């Protein structure tokens, strides 16, 4: 070992985000034109997004969770103030991000002709991957 790097994952690619949402196992909607998020009372919120996890998949008091395209093509997670502290919503978002990172690593390994072995740590929830030529 002689080099170490840490990356704060960002949703930079639409195809990988879609793949991550599918892999995370939670139902989601995809809209060609951004659609409004809905609040826990059924009220339409001003925020819009192209990918939306509806609130009934997040908890009884949750608002919709969205992923909105930004200038430059990256996606930002739209999380309500309440859901910043809602464990279920935060777990969903973390799972999507983890699946995004997994999809990214697997794709890059394929591009480089590397073999991947993968293990999930049941205690921490982390995924460990070894890539070899």
């Amino acid at each position, binding site marked *: 070992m002689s080099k170490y790097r840490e*990356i704060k994952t960002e949703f930079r690619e639409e195809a990988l985000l879609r793949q991550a949402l599918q892999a995370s196992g939670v139902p989601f909607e995809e809209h060609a034109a951004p659609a409004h998020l809905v609040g826990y009372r059924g009220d339409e919120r001003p925020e819009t997004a192209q990918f939306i996890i509806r609130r009934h998949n997040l908890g009884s008091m949750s608002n919709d969770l969205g992923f909105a395209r930004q200038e430059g093509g990256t996606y930002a997670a739209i999380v309500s103030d309440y859901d910043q502290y809602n464990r279920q919503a935060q777990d969903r978002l973390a799972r999507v991000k983890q699946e995004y990172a997994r999809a990214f690593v697997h794709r890059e390994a394929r591009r480089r002709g590397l073999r991947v072995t993968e293990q999930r740590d049941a205690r921490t929830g982390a995924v460990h991957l070894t890539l070899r030529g």
Partner: protein
Amino acid sequence: MAGKGSFEITIDAEGNIAGEIKDVSGPNCERLLDWLNAAGQVIVDRRTPDYYRREQTVDRRQQAGGRR
């Protein structure tokens, strides 16, 4: 990456990535992790103590050879 070297990648429960290169010594490994940068924002980028150990070993051997 050819030979015995490998990438060790950990994706934590929050989705952030930590990558290490193993069994590749010295400057050869400097840029081998650059592909990870496309996943997001680099928050830590460092050489490990092993990097410096190997470099010092090479330097001492070169110095010893030079005195003969």
